């Protein structure tokens, strides 16, 4: 059961209790039973620590991963975290919806050909081959070794990179290094904006 459904059901609980008394609506009781099952699964779930992916308060998260399916079944605040003490705001509390439980997650490499009006699914190998080829072509064509004053500049001005403050430190560092190895000077991201 998704939390949203549960919330909806909780909302009708007041009315539901009254109706249940008349033997009319058992939905809230089923919902409750589902929650109990979830609590059982939580008990046996593997716990991992994470950090919220939205603002720089950096609230602590506990992710519970189902042992059988290997999927995340719950994410909640980490009560041991000295800053957040278990609290999360609306965004942090909803991080579960960034997981594959969200039907909108991208899961395939998509490609849009020039002048096309649609995405096509591709493999990583295909995409990496094509991307590296395009980068090399442009870099080789437009690389500037010396400027007009004869100073060595070793840069390329026709390629640019942006992002991201939503990536981990190690990824950011790897991107910085890679972009400089290509000779990029147009490098920027959210920190400026």
């Amino acid at each position, binding site marked *: 059961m998704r939390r949203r459904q549960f919330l909806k059901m909780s909302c009708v609980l007041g009315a539901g209790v009254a109706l249940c008394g008349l033997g009319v609506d058992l939905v809230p009781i089923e919902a409750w039973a589902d929650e109990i099952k979830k609590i059982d699964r939580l008990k046996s779930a593997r716990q991992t620590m994470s950090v919220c992916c939205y603002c720089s308060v950096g609230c602590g998260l506990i992710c519970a991963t189902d042992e059988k399916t290997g999927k995340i079944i719950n994410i909640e605040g980490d009560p041991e975290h000295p*800053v957040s003490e278990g609290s999360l705001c609306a965004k942090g509390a909803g991080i579960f919806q960034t997981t594959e439980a969200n039907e909108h997650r991208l899961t395939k490499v998509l490609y849009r050909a020039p002048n096309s009006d649609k995405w096509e699914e591709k493999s990583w190998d295909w995409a990496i081959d094509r991307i590296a080829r395009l980068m090399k072509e442009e870099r080789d064509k437009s690389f500037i070794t010396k400027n007009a004053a004869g100073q060595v500049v070793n*840069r390329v001005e026709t390629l640019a990179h942006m992002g991201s403050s939503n990536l981990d430190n190690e*990824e950011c560092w790897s991107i*910085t290094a890679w972009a400089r190895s290509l000779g990029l000077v147009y490098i920027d991201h959210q920190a400026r904006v």
Partner: protein
Amino acid sequence: MTNHWIDIQHSDCILIQGSNAAENHPISFKWVMRAKERGAKLIHVDPRFTRTSSKADFYAPLRSGTDIAFLGGMIKYIIDNNKIFHDYVVNYTNAPFLVDGKFGFKDGLFTGYDADKRGYDKSTWTYQKDAGGIILRDETLKNPRCVYQMLKAHYARYDLKKVSSITGTPEKDLKTVYEMFSSTGTKDRAGTIMYALGQTHHTVGVQNIRALAIVQLLLGNIGVCGGGVNALRGEPNVQGSTDHALLYHYLPGYLAAPRTSQQTLESYIKKITPSTTEAKSVNWQSNYGKYAVSLLKSWYGDAATKDNEFGYAWVPKADDGKDYSVMTLFDVMYAGKIKGMTVFGQNPACSIPNSNKVRAAFAKLDWMVHLNIFDNETASFWKGPGMDPAKVKTEVFLLPASASVEKAGSQTNSGRWIQWRYEATKAPGDCIYAGEAIIRIQNKLKELYKKEGGTFPEPILNMTSDGLAEKGGYDAEKVAKLINGYFLADVEIGGKQYKKGDCVPSFALLQADGTTSSGNWICAGSFAQDGKNLMQRRGKADPTGLGLYPEWSFAWPVNRRVLYNRASCDPTGKPYNPKRAVLEWKDGKWVGDVPDGAPPPLAAEGGKLPFIMKPDGVSSLFGPGLGDGPFPEHYEPLESPLARNLMSAQQNNPAILLYNSDKDMVASADARFPIVMTTYSSTEHWCTGAFTRWQTWLTEAMPQAYVEMSEELAKEKGIKNGDKVRVESARGKLECVAMVTPRFRPFLVNGKTLHQVGMPYNYGWRFPADNGDSANLLTPTVGDANAMTPEYKAFMVNVVKV
């Protein structure tokens, strides 16, 4: 942040200006409320009454774009009423320094302005020196050329009446705020300032922050528990992404990026290592050469040798004085000069000003590579409003990425805590780490260059890839170690042995001879010498009782929790406030937090000044380092309701860069656009909503774009709450829902009623359908004179009912 989140609880007076912390950093507010429970006073200064205001002891409205006028008035109040923390100001700031006789300021301009270059020759922005090069000073602070007196003279114009006529804040409200906050200029009281994008998103953004710093230095509030100038950074790892230099103008660890005038490593190091004649200054930046060489070693490994200047030639050189930041990037792209672009985890189609220009620029690219966890307006720009896909030639790759909970790695919070997270599950489908995508592209490029040759292959072939991967795949912990740094040879330093392959436990051990590597010196120490990952720590010990939690994660630099903490002690090393002693000099050593510099306090033998990152060892009331003046001065936003700046003949910041494309229309003091507008975020959405708009739990609460306006303006325009309206600027227009609310009130500016409205920037056309587009369709392409941060927070619009 100079301090950290938990520290806010120790403050006696909290000034939140340019932030809506209660809604945009909700959990930080826990610590604001704890301070209030202790009796602290909370002040909120903002154009709009928000949930932050609702918890404040005092709320003062101000017109967007007038913070320097507001804070200049506070500086004047502090000086006129002698509220300064005298001991601190004399010992720890440049207040006593005598300024060069030729330096001056007249009618909005400092000496040395060149109108053609739109910049300053800063040669007079300096100090008087004796024959030995020592700065002359007057510790009585009476000399009319001393910084303190110059500061006083500069802000003499910022009286209550003038400030009120500019800001629209009633005079009595100004006085109340000034009185409340300046009460913290004593030993036993600490005041903190919390700010966010409300201060930085202006053409005077950096000077806004300088004004905050000047206030805090005059009151002795920097380095102390419960004090500081605290930036509430808006994105999860924006601290870390800044530290690691995903920006053109410096390299990891804030080492300036090489420019064309620095043709050799020697000339580069000379440029980035300031010298000082001040015997009591630590001048930590004199070590930058060691950090630069250690960075080159981490990048190029064995290929970086003394003989080839550690590969310095392989690092791209930007032209001196030229800007390459995001608005220039898009200006150049719009002109058709950029051919290929990678965009990882960002949505510039909605987040960069003047979105129409940005989106048109994308269509001029040959190709774009975008990596994200959801589709967005950037990846799908070719099918956006006004685009005909058949006419857009751009090849687009949309790469699926792992989400945060599916990744191991570290993230740095605003308090500089680098916290480790773990992979809770494998990412779905073909999703991979962004780091893995980079390795794959990098390895493929290496393969192509090896096989086919090409232009200047050395930097590509020599850049580390082994350092990023284990068994061929991206390995976050391995990269983290590379960032921390290694000893590359067996060495003995200060009588201690370090073995080749050991992790460098502190940046103090880094060397300029190639015997150490460190991908980012400020992170050195995040691993212990034996390779233990300190970012993973979860210890809750709290030896000072102040909530520093030194065994929880790792804080850069060297696990210091409060920056400039030696300034919390008097020159003999006694804490100014013993009840909240973040540090103390006891029996010949520092006790408490990790001291900001190991040397003894100023008055002790061998004592040093506390501001170790400043060449002269003191903090700067006079700040000659910036491009637009050593003192903050009020200028109007590029688009202003006023035809004339009430403070001087200089309407706008004279050092800002102006763009002239056919999409860069500007309408200032223009009857067509009479309403001031600002933009902001909401609790339920993150940035452009690129993640959060795809989440039903959040869109149920905040479904669609809206414009907030006062009841008075709504009445004037015949608009009712919930009506559909069109908001227009000189650059674009969009339709959204009107939210009529007393949270906005008309201002009285220069004797006239002035309206201001505001919009969240959380929306875009891609999803959910028909729920509005980006507020940045309206914003101008203009930025701060120093940082090029766009002026998202103050520009002119009109609103009409549709």
